[in-house]
């Protein structure tokens, strides 16, 4: 459950308009807070040799199941600090970490519903990072890293946004 911030999108616009330096500094500060999560999450992903041989990309394969490529999967774990489009509930994300590749998502969540399936058990016997988190936030890489971060990143992001707002208000008053 993300922390709800009111007025942050408007703040970003105002920062761009009135204090470009703060507008540049804010994403950097947010990024610095999110980086530990993505770095840790990449560390929890297996290398090519640690996944099932049939899951690795093969030449001329016509398989529709997303093949695992450690380099791409690790590169797919990242963060963004720009406000997103509103979701179905009307919320715009201000800071987000994501695991965007299909194979990465499979590794992240496999066994949530079917821990006894052959694929999951075979992969677990070869290599598996511990599942951490709760319900929809349960996973092996990104969710685990977020869980182990204990809200430090969230606090740092909120602090950065609040700090930028305070600075802008101070400058406006001065």
């Amino acid at each position, binding site marked *: *459950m*993300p*922390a*709800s*911030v*009111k*007025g*942050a*999108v*408007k*703040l970003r*616009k*105002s920062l761009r308009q009135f204090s470009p330096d703060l507008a540049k500094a804010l994403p950097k500060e947010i990024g610095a*807070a*999110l980086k530990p*999560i993505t770095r840790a999450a990449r560390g929890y992903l297996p290398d090519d040799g640690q996944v099932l041989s049939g899951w690795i990309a093969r030449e001329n394969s016509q398989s529709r199941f997303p093949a695992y490529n450690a380099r791409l999967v690790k590169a*797919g774990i990242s963060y963004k600090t720009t*406000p997103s489009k*509103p979701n*179905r*509930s*009307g*919320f*715009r*994300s*201000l*800071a*987000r*970490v*994501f*695991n*965007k*590749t*299909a194979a*990465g*998502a499979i590794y*992240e*969540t496999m066994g949530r519903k079917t821990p006894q399936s052959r694929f999951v058990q075979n992969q677990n016997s070869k290599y598996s990072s511990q599942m951490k988190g709760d319900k929809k*936030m349960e*996973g092996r890489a*990104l*969710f685990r890293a*977020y869980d182990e971060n204990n*809200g430090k*990143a*969230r*606090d740092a*992001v*909120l*602090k950065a*946004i*609040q700090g930028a*707002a305070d600075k*802008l*208000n101070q400058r*406006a008053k001065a």
Partner: protein
Amino acid sequence: MANVFIDIAAEFTGKKAFKQAETSTEKLTKNVKQLAKTFGLAFGTAQVIAFGKASIKAAAADQKAQQQLALALQNVGLGRDAASSENYIQRLQSEFGIIDDKLRPAYQILAIATRDTATSQKLLNLGLDISAATGKDLGAVTTALSRAYLGNNTALTRLGVGISKADLKTKSFEEIVDQLGTTFKGSATAAANTFQGSIDKLSVASANASEIIGTGLIDALKGLGDQNSVDDLANSMEDAALYTADVIRGIGVLTQKLQALPGVGNFNIGMIPIVGSYLEILRGLGKQSASKPFTTPMTISGQSQQSTKITKDQAKTAKENLKVSKDSLKLSKAKAIFDLQKIQIEAALKGKISEEDRVRLLLMKAIEEENISNIEKYTKLLDEAQKKTIELRDALKVSDPFSTFNSGALNAATSVESLIAKVRELTGVVFTNPIAMTSFAQGIEAGLPTSEALSGARYAAQGAAAMGGGSVNVTVNAGVGDPEAIARVIEDTLRQSTYRGTGGLLAI
């Protein structure tokens, strides 16, 4: 498609912005038409001014209520939830058709009582259900709920919500709330879906529209800023109303004419040459003056850093307190280890002691520990034990067992003497030799027959005679200068003499 992401922070910007915008535009079109009718056709200038005044009043009252609620929440430590609470009230308003003027005081009462946003919202939802089902005033219901939360159930019984006094006495507040929730579940929603509910929703929308217009007028007042601004504004409003009414009438006529033309679809005011441009500029100016960035402070709800910090601080303080209490406990235990008095008492208690002694020791222990209740208890027990001892002593009281000892011994000596005299009388034996007489007496005392006793006496006398008239010189062969060795030899000799029956004759 992979959909694995975590939103760290988010902002609510409204559901489906485009659709909402479309709906809003449609609503606005309808309202404009309605306003045109209302302003232009139905009412005159005086009504317009009266409406303006009422709108300003409503907007001011709404603003005041908002600020009061925010202040009340801030005072009870829920300041950071003020924005979300306001959103919640707005949602309830549109969902159930109950005006915010009723919802805010109700929410405020609950927030002050519970000091928790989630509980307040849960109880307000319950209050809405109860109010809808029973027809009671929402304020009365929430007051009763807040009192019940604080432990006063009387108000709940007066509501007549089907809770017995026995239930109120035996059940916890949570259980009562669950029961009420089950009883009145969905009442507010059902009421809102009726025709009356729809009318209520419309009246809420109307009140909101009035407040919104009033807010605009207040902004305009603020913008003028002169001493005579109200009069000026009133005059301006009057002129503007007359002007607007005429303009709206004109637009209505113009729209009809334009729509009658072939090829003209949806008509927009902005499409009118020159006049439309001016109106658009005016609209832009109004919009610009209405949206002032950061006139209200940015709020962060959910688990913010500040709340985390407070929680951490509280946990730290609690931890420190716990450590201090643990340390003091350890210290007292350590002191107890070296408390000799206590050690002695404990050691004594472990030994085999009488009941009275045990009570005494326990009393001493209680005095050491300064435990008043134990002191009283053991004092009483000790008194009882002492009384019992006295009773026992009285029961076992006897005369001095040695009081007759001397007379007994005298009697025994007399008896022996009389016995000797009797022996002398019976046997005719006269002992001239004291050694023989003593031997004879000892033999008789030992229960020997008289003949054997006499025989023994004779041997004793002979033995004494053989040893030279009653005195024997003994040469002790022992180390010179070793008194212990000499004493042992003498002792052995005497013992052997005793074995022989001549011990009483020996003298050193």
